[in-house]
């Protein structure tokens, strides 16, 4: 169910939400967090679809904010979505204009679910310093996605310089399955020393840089990035005394990978690409600061040549 509220106020929106809950006989408790989405008109539907999917695991109130700075009156249009149109929660879409766009924090404060964590997610251009953004400052965790901005390297450089423990970029979240696999590969004998590591991937792929930084930090050995490949992160080779242990995707954009090791048969396995929805769900599952990510940015990053 979709309700349009043109030229409205936050008080009217709250009242309308309460009335809808009463009418539909559902309670608004049960929501485990409020998700603030900062986005633009052209990506709004995509954002809501992803948030609705993630809300099935973590019922939340979604507040999508689409500022229109160019018009100069301070005006608010809103839209409410319930039930089938809103996953397991409710969605509020806010279109503030003019001066209102400078006060996004006080715009959403009356609409936050009481007493539960607030998460902010930027879909589209990445702010230079998420913790100083009005929506970021009131959030307990801040999610950006530099990979999908116009200049990923520049966007990520700014995020790294301004990093705060509550910030996470989804380039890191995309690596979780890879990292788990690499950990499990090193769980197996022979435990021979690793001399060097090569990470293979394409130019401009942030996950490649982050994975290399993580490996350099944890293994304390030289890690080089080989950027001859296409298609993002392609593989990792551990150079050990007794030969190379490697995991590689079978081809660019393939969802298959193969593990090779001296004296063992090749092992094939699935490597499904992670959807944005899965990444967002992972962030919702854990709201604590990610210390490992912090160390990778602060220390690991400088151990690797990123050219």
């Amino acid at each position, binding site marked *: 169910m979709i309700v349009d509220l043109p030229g409205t106020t936050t008080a009217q929106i709250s009242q309308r939400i309460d009335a809808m809950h009463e009418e539909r006989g559902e309670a608004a408790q049960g929501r485990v967090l409020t998700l603030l989405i900062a986005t633009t008109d052209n990506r709004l539907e995509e954002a809501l679809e992803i948030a609705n999917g993630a809300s*099935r695991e973590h019922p939340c109130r979604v507040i999508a904010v689409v500022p229109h700075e160019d018009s100069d009156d301070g005006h608010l249009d809103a839209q409410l979505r319930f039930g089938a149109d809103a996953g397991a929660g409710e969605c509020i879409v806010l279109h503030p204009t003019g001066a209102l766009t400078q006060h996004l924090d006080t715009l959403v404060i009356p609409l936050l679910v009481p007493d539960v964590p607030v998460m902010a997610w930027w879909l589209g251009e990445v702010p230079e310093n998420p913790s100083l953004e009005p929506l970021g400052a009131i959030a307990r965790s801040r999610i950006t996605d530099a990979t999908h901005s116009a200049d990923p390297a520049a966007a990520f450089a700014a995020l790294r310089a301004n990093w705060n423990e509550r910030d996470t970029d989804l380039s890191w*979240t995309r690596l*979780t399955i890879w990292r788990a696999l690499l950990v499990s590969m090193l769980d197996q004998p022979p435990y021979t020393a690793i001399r060097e590591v090569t990470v293979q991937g394409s130019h401009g792929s942030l996950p490649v840089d982050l994975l290399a930084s993580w*490996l350099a930090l944890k*293994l304390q050995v030289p890690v080089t990035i080989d950027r001859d490949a296409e298609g993002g992160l392609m593989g990792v080779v551990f150079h050990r005394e007794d030969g190379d242990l490697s995991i590689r995707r079978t081809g660019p954009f393939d969802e298959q990978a193969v593990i090779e090791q001296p004296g063992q*048969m090749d092992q094939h396995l699935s490597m499904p690409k992670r959807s944005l929805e899965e990444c967002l769900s992972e962030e919702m599952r854990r709201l604590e600061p990610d210390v490992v990510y912090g160390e990778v940015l602060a220390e690991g990053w400088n151990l690797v040549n990123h050219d």
Partner: protein
Amino acid sequence: MGHHNPLRDSRDLRLPRIAGPCSLVIFGVTGDLSRKKLLPAVYDLASRGLLPAGFALVGFGRREWSDEDFVAYVERSVRERARTPFDEDTFRHLAEGMRFVRGEFDDAAAFEQLSKTVSELDRLRGTRGNHAFYMSVPPSAFPIVSRQLADSGLAKSDKGAWRRVIIEKPFGHDLQSARELNRVVAEVFDPDSVFRIDHYLGKETVQNLLALRFANTMFEPIWNSNYVDHVQITMAEDIGIGSRAGYFDGIGIARDVIQNHLLQLLALTAMEEPVSFSADDLRAEKIKVLSAVRLPEDLSLHTARGQYSAGWQGSEQAVGYLQEQGVNPDSTTETYAAVRLDIDTRRWAGVPFYLRTGKRLGKRVTEIAVVFKRAPHLPFEQTSTSELGENAIVIRVQPDEGVTLRFGSKVPGTAMEVRDVNMDFSYGNSFTEASPEAYERLILDVLLGEPPLFPTTKEVELSWQILDPIEQYWATLGQPQAYRAGTWGPKEADEMLARDGRCWRMP
């Protein structure tokens, strides 16, 4: 093992744990449990990326199947039941490691073949000598399968590799048989590699219960005989025995459900706070509280049993137990059982625990209700509180996992009147949809070698010590009291609580 993996970091909370290389051998792979639960769970684990590249699945059964027939059978079961979408590539990788070994349990040559098959998999799939054996077979077959595994050298592992065995409940049918079963299994496998599984009791449930009791301050201070009047633990099923007559008749619901499931729930509800949540510390507390359980002196007054008769369960017509296919028409097997147990500790002195379970009851529900004493003084007119019941905390185990608080609240209006209301929290709303199915969790725990939260030998034996005298007493009685299908059990059970001045909750 002494090896420290430099990539592992306990602060790295994102990383899911992936099982190491291994094979899973399922005995009784053509059975219902395997088709409906185990095989789909294995696929779901694979598609979530939690199985290692070196994974193999071996079926052992009586059918004249080739490996291809087995793969086709697994595919059908996965397509029907798996909760993650079917992906050709994922399944293909899994299928490359599937083998079928044909044989009877008493056929030494078949186990020879099994032994060859797994060592071939060690070579081809890199399973590295790690093997888990899932006994999805009747308990009567445990001894022979264990023996054969030992004789063919499968039960013992080389250095650095592991062997594990998974046994489903029931763990025997009385103390003596449970001991015998333990003895047989212990001869072959060491105690740490035996995983006893009670699929009613998912790890999620246990952990939810522990979190509710020990992560909060508001419940623990009143969790004792100063405030609690009594506790009711219910596990009700709406279905009859279905096709399980062969197993169920002569065993009865008390052995099937009270012995393991309800007594485990009782232990988790009543135990003291463990010093840590490690399997050992948890086990220590459960054993303490189970060993403090006291049976009523007069079993005729404080136990009840029943047998369902024909009727309508909800909107569905149901035959009586004695008319079920495969049931002896003179059977005295109970399909409903209720018992009162007391716990001799300072915390619970004088607080009875009522356990009940039955088939063909009003609806399917499992819950723990902690019912509190009435307020010692009510500063209201008598008439204001005539509708006020006892406060309660109800832990709903299934379906719709969650917690309900029941307390009095003023009825809106000018008159002062207090009535019971419910306040609800539902895990179903908040955390479930994508939460892993119990069997996935369970298989993964075994493959990872996570110490299980499942009952140990000692707990199993203590539970039988509690139930055996009741079973012996019931064996001297005749026919259990009949109750109409779809009701909440026999009159006897209501009378049993009425004697104590209490009544059963309606779940």
